[in-house]
C-alpha cells in the first residue's frame, strides 16, 4: 500500500456514462490483485473532501499500467471524466482484500452487474492467465450500458439486459439461476445490492461458495475509521475497505 502521484495515460468512453482510465502504476507501488481497489483524490482543497474508491479493472506489470472502469455519478467522477492524458493523479493503493482463487474442482462463475464490471474483468483476466476456465456473466439495464469493447473474448461469456436490447432479456441472477443445480459452481460477483442479494439466495440454496465484492461509503480506506461498515447476518459488521471489499457473500446482510 502506497500513496503515489502518478499520471493518466489515456481515457476512453466504453459505454454510456462509463469510461476506462489507463494510468501509470509503477512496480514499486505493489501489484494489485483482482478485487482490490485504490482511492483517488479528485482535486486539491476541501471540495470534494474525501478520496474516492475505485476497483482495479486490470494491471499490466510489464508496462507499469493499470486501468479503472468508472461511471459518472457525482462531482468526483464528473471531474475525472474531464481529465486529459497527462493529468496528475493522487492515488492510494492497492487496498483491501481481493478475490481468493477458486478451489480446485469448482467451476468459477463470474458475475458483473453495472459498474461492478471492473473487478470482475480483472478476475477473469487473472484466471485466464492461470489457465483456469471461467464463465463470465454481465447484467445491465440496457445495451447502451454494456462496455462491449471490454468484454472478455473466448467461450462462456454471456450478456443479459433488463430490456433485452443486447444478449438475453433478464438479469445476471437469472442467468446464474439457470445453471445446473448440481454443478460445483464457485460464484464471484460485484454489482448492485439487489443482484448481490439474489446471488446470495441462489448460493445459499445450492451450497455454492460466493465471493462478493461490496461497495460502501469510505473515509480512510485503510481500516482506521470504521466508516465502511457492511452488516453481517450474524450481527456485527465487516469493514469494506480492510476486511473486504471481497467478503463471503453468504455472511453479508444484503437488504
Amino acid at each position: 500500500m502506497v500513496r503515489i502521484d502518478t499520471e493518466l495515460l489515456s481515457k476512453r468512453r466504453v459505454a454510456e456514462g462509463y469510461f476506462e482510465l489507463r494510468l501509470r502504476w509503477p512496480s514499486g507501488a505493489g501489484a494489485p490483485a483482482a478485487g482490490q481497489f485504490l482511492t483517488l483524490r479528485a482535486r486539491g482543497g476541501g471540495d470534494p473532501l474525501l478520496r474516492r474508491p475505485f476497483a482495479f479493472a486490470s494491471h499490466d506489470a510489464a508496462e507499469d499500467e493499470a486501468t479503472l472502469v468508472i461511471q459518472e455519478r457525482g462531482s468526483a467522477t464528473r471531474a475525472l471524466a474531464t481529465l486529459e492524458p497527462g493529468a496528475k493523479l493522487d492515488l492510494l493503493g492497492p487496498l483491501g482484500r481481493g478475490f481468493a482463487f477458486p478451489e480446485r474442482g469448482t467451476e468459477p462463475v463470474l458475475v458483473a452487474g453495472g459498474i461492478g464490471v471492473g473487478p470482475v474483468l480483472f478476475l477473469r483476466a487473472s484466471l485466464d492467465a492461470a489457465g483456469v476456465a471461467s464463465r463470465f456473466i454481465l447484467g445491465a439495464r440496457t445495451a447502451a450500458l454494456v462496455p462491449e469493447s471490454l468484454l472478455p473474448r473466448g467461450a462462456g461469456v454471456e450478456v443479459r439486459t433488463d430490456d433485452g436490447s443486447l444478449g438475453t432479456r433478464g438479469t445476471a441472477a437469472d442467468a446464474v439461476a439457470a445453471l445446473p443445480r448440481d454443478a460445483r459452481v464457485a460464484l464471484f460477483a460485484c454489482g448492485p445490492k439487489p443482484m448481490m442479494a439474489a446471488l446470495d439466495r441462489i448460493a445459499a440454496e445450492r451450497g455454492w461458495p460466493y465471493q462478493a465484492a461490496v461497495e460502501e461509503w469510505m473515509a480512510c480506506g485503510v481500516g482506521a475509521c470504521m466508516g465502511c461498515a457492511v452488516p453481517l447476518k450474524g450481527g456485527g459488521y465487516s469493514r469494506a475497505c480492510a476486511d473486504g471489499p471481497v467478503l463471503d457473500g453468504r455472511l453479508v446482510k444484503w437488504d
Partner: protein
Amino acid sequence: MGLNDATRAPVGAAPEPFAPDLSVRIGPLTLANPVGVASGTFGYGEEYAALLDLDALGAVYTKAVTVEPRAGNPAPRLAETPCGMLNSIGLANPGLVAFIRDKLPALRARRFRTVVNVAGAALDDYVRVVEEIEAAGGVDAYELNVSCPNVKSGGMAFGTDPALVALVTEAVRRATKRALVVKLSPNVTDIRETARAAEASGADAVSAINTLVGMAVDVKTRRPRLAMKTGGLSGPALRPVGVAAVYRISRAVKIPVIGLGGIATADDALEYLLAGADAVQVGTATFADPGAALRVLEGIEAWMRQNRVARVADIKGLLIE
C-alpha cells in the same frame, strides 16, 4: 522570543541557523511536537503505518476504547457535506480486553506518545477503562471523550453538562497520575463552562472540538444519508467553530488547550496556535491526505524558523488583538 518577518528580511541575507523547540508539555507529559492525529481517524496507529513515519507524530490519540466491545451503528455511517463530512460510527471498537491484548503491544513498541481516547455509557465505565489500562501499562495519557454525539445514552449527556464533566473528570483523575485530557463538545451554549469544570476537577488539558451535530438528506432516495439520521460534522467546514472555541477556552482556563477541527495545513494549525492552542490534532484531513499531520508539523517548524519563534508555547503570544 523574537519575531522577524522573513518576508521583510533584506534579500540575499542568509538567515542564521535557528532551531525552534517543538516540544509541548501537557501536565506530566512532554510531547516531542505539537501535532497529533485525532481520535477515530487513525485507528490504533498501525493502519497507517505503511503510509507515513508514525514515530514522527507528536501523539496518536486512539479510537475510543469502551469497556465492552462495540459493533457500532448501522450503515451507512458516512456522508460527505460541503467541505466536511458526517459520521455516525458509534464508538465501534474491540473493547477494553481486546484493546489491551491486541492493540497495546504495538502501541508500546512505538516512539510516539499514545493517548487513549476513553468513552463510556456511565461514569464507572470511564474509570474502569483507565484503571485496567493503567494496570496493563504502556500508554502516556488519556483523553476523555465526554462529547461524542453519536451514542444516545453516552458521551453527549456528559459532555454538555459542566457538572457531569466535573464528575467524570474527578473520578478518572483518582485512577491515574498520567496526563488527563478532557475532550469538549462544541454542541453547548458556552464551551468555557465545560472547560472550567474540567480544569477545576483536575484535568491537565482540554481538547476542543469534537464534532458538531449535523444531518444530511438524500433527496433522491428521500432518506437521511446516515442510518442514525444525525451524525457528527468534521472537516474544514467547521474549522472556524473550532478556532473560536479554542480562543475562548484559552482565555477562560490556565491549563493547555489542544485544538482540532478542520486542520489540513500548517496554516490551519497556526490559526489554532495563534488563537490560543498549545497543541493540535489532525483528523479528517488524514482521510484525504494520509501524510497531512506530518506536513502540518513540517510547516509549523518552518514557520517558527522563519519567524524565529523559539517555543511552540510562544506562538499564542504573537496574536495581535
